[in-house]
């Protein structure tokens, strides 16, 4: 435990000699540092209350004398809080790693992160007990090694300096002990505990669910309300309509040859999307001219990444999709489904051709309904899937992965009614931010202040905390024990990587107070729960260690359930299609429901299709914009259901006409220094009755401008073909279409450089890439890339080393959309290297184009001369050198760049060298696939492959040998090491012919 001891850092000034009991029976087996070992009363006092009274309260008036005292105390305590601490309980690193810390060598721990309650298994890289990077867990069914941007960015969330650090009681500094007292007083009050309400997000955690259920069984009258602003109520209700119970739907995308999505973005959003994207991509990995590939039809109103991947995309108003589903169902012979109220706005050949295609692939087709579509669409889609024989083949159903599947919005409505009637005396808000994201017409903000005793467990002192009596800092997922289910039911145990940085509590701890089990640590709660579940395990300790190590509880995926459809699905005639301008609400692609608003990485991550950062928009089609006389970046007033909000317009090719999409999650008023004041709050016009789709929107011009920060302002390829596309048929006829202009032996005056040993290269499959942007965030985390802010992005100074270019092709109403990830391509003949006057960018013996930060004087000549424009310059001091809490987050193997220095993709040279050193130590050659770049690692669709191109059998060499392989801007003779595999489309000839005619 030497490391542990070192880790405590210097002892605080006032600490006395180590406690006599240390190391004996009573002392903890692991301690956080010398101070805890010492365990003096002063220490305990400090630990309880890291910040002396008043230090956390911005409004507190301090006189000079008190201020000096507070500062002195803080300085004295800095020794404790300055260093990071391992959690006290035993956590277990991922497979085959030493259990002790070796300085300079990272450990990986398997755990999980959740979104909307649903888990994605991750591995977290930890340097000297500091989690620095999240990666997907290959053993986890929902991840298979991939992670999305939210998971990638969770490390920044962990170290966010704006997270709350202290209990706050009515604006004053409180303490955990005081809260315990107050809570028990409140529960012991006249109306007792029956007025207790728990408000949580969706919970899939078995141990937490168990704890809540046992609590509710103890306290009669207490109720548990789950609420998510990005609700899946429609999915649940659709399941209820179809099967009479709430089931979870799981897709087997790998089994599907023809897929239809109805307003669904299942490849990049929602439970299981990482796995779906991977399976989808595998069905599109065309090896040779006679290969098959799947076909995707997308019918949607708001353009999504899934729609961009589609071979056929039909834009329909969100309200018209029900009609489409009905027409399709009838075309497929489901005659009990009532006909749509109005003719579907689809080209005449579309539905028959689609129905034929689906039918031909019975059992190998799949229809997916979007979460925002009404329940009846889900029910009809279930019926269609059954009619197509897809049940148990491409789609199966399990018992709900949620602990208490319910109609969340209506239970939220009941909660509001209960508060209004005064029957709620104690409200505990565990996570979530209802004061911000509850439907506007519910008036939840006002109701919240009516509750006699309200407490909020939250990571930030946000809008909800401000209206509650108590705010308790919440521990981050990387700081706490817990468990959660994935999309298919697989349970992961969440193990903390670090003791809470800011003294946060988890929901388990807070609920422990209520059930009188306060003494039991969350670790014990989770462990005991599983011990009770796994009575059949002969040696629970071994099971537990294995579970922690692997990140999944083996055998917890739910089995497929035999289901039977209720008769008469969709039989009742639909309401008349609504007229007038429609409004559609959508979670923001990067900020989600607003919970990530203070995360700079996610704020600056370009939204996949608009490439916008730092803002939400009111998105509409070119035609509708023209009718209304609107232009992008114009501020307009959206008036809906009696409420108005000012929003910036974004004209989006491919958007459905007469519809406006408003993205949720912005307009936060108490998000923190990053998120507060960005964008507009679409939630303000969102109503309880219509969470997703509504009509009767009015738009009024304000005449003001609203500048938006897009990282890509030009959408056309200008005939330059950076992305090469062909249909499957064209490819079969001309398999070398992508290499039309390739020169076998490009002219050069100089002999080729011979690379002995390794020569690194990369291949990116454009047929797989969904443009989700996970690689961008992964790269940002891995390489300590700075966030620059909206004004700098507007100028054009974002720092991302990898970007995903997005091009539109065709007409503005229904364009084809293509994505192209692009980072430094490591040219053999690099134009940048030639022009640097101080030789700060040079070629490595393995063919890397290296950037020597220390040598760079910042002439920017290299960037000017880079035809790919992948170099990024620190025009200002973008890296945060001042916020101590962020220091721990940084990858210690990558320099944090300072002002005036050029930077760019290094092919993750630190990872290359780490593996090389390891191989050298073991005296063995490098294995193919052993070196994985950060972007490659996280890519859900496995579009990025890295390796040694000197080895003809390496995966990357094999990919480069394919006839779809081409070099970007090959005509410049830069000879890039990164090459692309051309994109293929697989259109239905019937529809294609009709469209062409």
């Amino acid at each position, binding site marked *: 435990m030497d490391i542990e001891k070192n880790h405590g850092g210097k002892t605080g000034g006032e600490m006395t000699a180590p406690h006599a009991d240390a190391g004996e029976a009573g002392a903890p087996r692991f301690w956080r540092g010398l101070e805890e070992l010492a365990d003096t009363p002063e220490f305990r006092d400090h630990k309880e209350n890291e910040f002396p009274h008043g230090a956390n309260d911005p409004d507190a008036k301090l006189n000079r004398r008190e201020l000096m005292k507070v500062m002195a105390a803080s300085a004295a305590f800095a020794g404790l809080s300055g260093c990071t601490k391992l959690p006290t309980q035993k956590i277990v690193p991922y497979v085959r790693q030493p259990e002790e810390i070796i300085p300079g060598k990272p450990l990986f721990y398997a755990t999980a992160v959740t979104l909307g309650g649903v888990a994605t298994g991750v591995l977290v890289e930890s340097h000297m007990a500091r989690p620095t990077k999240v990666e997907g867990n290959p053993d986890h069914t929902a991840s298979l090694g991939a992670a999305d941007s939210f998971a990638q960015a969770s490390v920044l969330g962990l170290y966010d300096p704006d997270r709350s650090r202290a209990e706050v009681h009515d604006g004053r500094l409180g303490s955990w002990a005081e809260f315990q007292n107050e809570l028990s007083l409140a529960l012991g009050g006249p109306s007792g505990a029956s007025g207790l309400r728990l408000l949580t997000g969706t919970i899939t955690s078995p141990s937490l669910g168990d704890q809540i259920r046992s609590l509710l069984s103890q306290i009669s009258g207490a109720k548990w309300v789950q609420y998510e602003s990005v609700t899946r109520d429609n999915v649940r209700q659709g399941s209820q309509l179809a099967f009479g119970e709430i089931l979870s739907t799981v897709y087997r995308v790998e089994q599907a040859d023809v897929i239809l999505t109805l307003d669904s973005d299942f490849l990049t959003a929602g439970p299981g999307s990482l796995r779906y994207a991977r399976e989808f991509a595998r069905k599109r990995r065309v090896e040779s001219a006679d290969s098959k590939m799947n076909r995707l039809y997308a019918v949607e109103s708001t353009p999504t990444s899934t729609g961009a991947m589609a071979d056929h995309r039909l834009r329909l108003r969100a309200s018209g999709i029900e009609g489409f589903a009905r027409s399709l169902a009838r075309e497929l012979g489901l005659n009990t489904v009532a006909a749509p109220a109005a003719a579907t706005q689809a080209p005449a050949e579309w539905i028959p051709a689609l129905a034929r295609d689906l039918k031909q692939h019975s059992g190998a087709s799949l229809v997916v309904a979007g979460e925002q579509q009404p329940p009846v669409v889900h029910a009809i889609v279930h019926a269609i899937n059954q009619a197509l024989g897809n049940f148990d083949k491409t789609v199966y159903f399990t018992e709900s992965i949620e602990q208490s599947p319910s109609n969340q919005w209506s239970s939220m409505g009941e909660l509001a009614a209960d508060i209004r009637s005064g029957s709620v005396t104690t409200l505990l808000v565990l996570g979530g931010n209802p004061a911000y994201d509850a439907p506007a017409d519910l008036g939840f903000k006002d109701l919240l202040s009516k509750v006699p005793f309200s407490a909020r467990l939250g990571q930030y002192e946000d809008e909800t905390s401000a209206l509650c009596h108590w705010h308790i800092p919440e521990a981050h997922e990387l700081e706490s024990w817990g468990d959660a289910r994935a999309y298919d039911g697989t349970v992961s145990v969440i193990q903390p990587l670090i003791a809470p940085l800011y003294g946060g509590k988890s929901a388990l701890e807070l609920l422990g107070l209520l059930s009188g089990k306060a003494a039991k640590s969350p670790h014990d709660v989770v462990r005991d729960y599983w011990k009770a579940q796994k009575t059949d395990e002969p040696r629970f300790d071994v099971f537990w260690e294995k579970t922690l190590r692997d990140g999944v509880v083996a055998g917890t995926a739910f089995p497929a359930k035999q289901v039977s459809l209720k008769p008469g699905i969709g039989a009742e005639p639909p309401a008349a299609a609504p007229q007038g301008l429609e409004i559609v609400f959508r979670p923001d692609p990067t900020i989600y429901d607003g919970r990530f608003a203070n995360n700079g990485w996610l704020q600056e991550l370009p939204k996949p299709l608009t490439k916008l950062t730092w803002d939400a928009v009111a998105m509409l089609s070119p035609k509708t914009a023209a009718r209304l006389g609107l232009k992008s970046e114009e501020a307009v007033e959206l008036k809906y259901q009696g409420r108005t909000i000012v929003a910036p317009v974004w004209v989006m090719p491919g958007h459905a006409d007469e519809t406006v999409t408003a993205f949720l999650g912005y307009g936060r008023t108490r998000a923190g220094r990053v998120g507060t004041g960005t964008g507009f709050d679409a939630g303000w016009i969102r109503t309880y009755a219509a969470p997703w789709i509504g009509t009767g929107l009015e738009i009024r011009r304000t005449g003001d401008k609203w500048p938006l920060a897009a990282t890509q*302002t030009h959408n056309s390829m200008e005939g330059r073909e950076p992305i090469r596309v062909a249909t499957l048929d064209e490819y079969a006829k001309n398999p070398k279409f992508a290499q039309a202009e390739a020169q076998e032996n490009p002219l050069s005056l100089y002999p080729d450089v011979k690379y002995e040993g390794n020569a690194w290269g990369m291949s990116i499959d454009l047929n797989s890439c969904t443009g989700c942007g996970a690689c961008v965030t992964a790269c940002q985390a891995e390489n300590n890339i700075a966030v620059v802010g909206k004004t700098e992005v507007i100028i*054009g100074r974002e720092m991302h080393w990898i970007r995903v270019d997005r091009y539109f092709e065709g007409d503005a109403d229904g364009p084809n959309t293509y994505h192209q990830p*692009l980072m430094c391509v490591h040219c053999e003949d690099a134009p940048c290297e030639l022009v640097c006057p*101080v*030789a700060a960018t040079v070629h490595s013996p393995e063919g890397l184009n290296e950037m020597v930060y220390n040598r760079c*004087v910042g002439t920017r000549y290299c960037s*000017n001369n880079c035809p790919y424009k992948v170099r990024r310059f620190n*025009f200002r*001091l973008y890296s945060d050198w001042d916020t101590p809490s962020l220091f721990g987050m940084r990858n210690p193997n990558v320099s944090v760049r300072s002002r005036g220095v050029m930077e760019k993709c290094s092919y993750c040279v630190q990872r290359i060298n780490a593996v090389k050193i390891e191989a050298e130590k073991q005296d063995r050659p490098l294995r193919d696939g052993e070196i994985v770049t950060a972007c490659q690692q996280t890519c859900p669709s496995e579009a990025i492959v890295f390796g040694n191109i000197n080895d003809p059998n390496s995966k990357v060499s094999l990919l480069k040998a394919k006839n779809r392989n081409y070099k970007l801007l090959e005509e410049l003779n830069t000879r890039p090491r990164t090459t692309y595999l051309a994109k293929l489309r697989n259109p239905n000839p019937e529809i294609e012919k009709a469209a062409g005619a």
Partner: protein
Amino acid sequence: MADSPADKLAEKMATAPILGPGHDYASVTDKISAIVLKRRPPKWWWAGFAIGFALLMIFLYAVTYLLLVGTGIWGIMIPVGWGFAIINFVWWIGIGHAGTLISAILLLLRQQWRTSINRFAEAMTLFAVACAGMFPLLHMGRPWLAYWMFPYPDTMKMWPNFRSPLAWDVFAVSTYATVSLLFWFVGLLPDLATLRDRAKNPVAKVIYGFLAMGWRGSAVHWYRHETASLLLAGLATPLVLSVHTIVSFDFAFGIVPGWHATIFPPYFVAGAIYAGFAMVLTLSIPVRKVFGLEDFITMRHLDNMGKVLLATALIVGYGYMMEAFSAYYSSDQYERFMILNRMFGPYAGMYWTLILCNIVTPQFLWFRKVRSKVGALFAIAMVVNLGMWLERFVIVVTSLHRDFLPSSWGMYYPTRWDFAIFFGTIGLFVTLLFLFIRFLPLISIYEMRALVSEEEKKAEG
């Protein structure tokens, strides 16, 4: 022959003297040295100096802020990594060229009409190079490390990258600055001695005495002075061609469409001479007026400079044409797009203004009447100054802002700090120029005396 008024004018211009009548050694010396020694600085001097100095203060302020915050205060971004700084650098370097051309090449070619303007033009060169030299330093991300650009034996055994045109720039510009300074200073020596001898103020006596480096006017001094001048002129002559050639390499060696062209070196040199002569005209016309130096900088000088301006305008115009033609003829889609984007893209206004300034306006110089009107010459010179600045803007910005991949295209907008530093260097230039006018003889006294003797010989002969 000499019937029409135009022909009369032509005759008059051709035979116009390069020194006004009635001057002898003493009057030349008196008149020129009096500007420095006798006359109190007139009001306009104070006004001009105040303006220049105020701009210089803005420059210092902006540079301080620049060093504190970084080049992010400017409008540069990705893809336009070079903006005003490089535009200004090329512009100032170009302006300097006329000085060297007049003093070196015209000296070697024994063009006597250069005498009265060469001192002035050389000073202009020096100050312009000083202004220009600021920019490569200031535009760096980390200017405090600028010395890494020089080849010096350091402990890491790192040398500059000799393949980089920017490294060549360092040598070209520093050599140019050194030779220009030496040339100017050597030329000043006899005049500094004159001022030393004539100064009444003891402090001025000491300073001029120190600067005169013991010049006594002995025959040996004159002999060595003459030799040194010729040698330096010989050294400076290739510099006229090399400096701007190398500056043009900064662009021509890049692969950016709009930069990557073999025509750049001659086209840049011509542009530099063009800009330089425009600037000499811009400065000499007011100076000659206010100091009453019409006898020394005569209409003959102005007429000749007008002709040089016209000639270089045509070369530059040819350059523009060839740029467009080779883009078309290359059949390269990026080159073709580049030229169309210049002409009709978002910065088209800049391009057409440039054509108007640099190609159309100088055509008036075909007419002797225009060349004989001081006001018209001044106006045209000002237009050309602007046009040459725009030319560099067009080359730097419109080439970069839309290069190969449309996803990376962007727009460059200068900020107030860009302008502050640009006008700030104009302030530096003006300040130095006014100090020069005030403290040093702005026309070479000894060379004018030589002219007097030649005129006398002519009169006798």
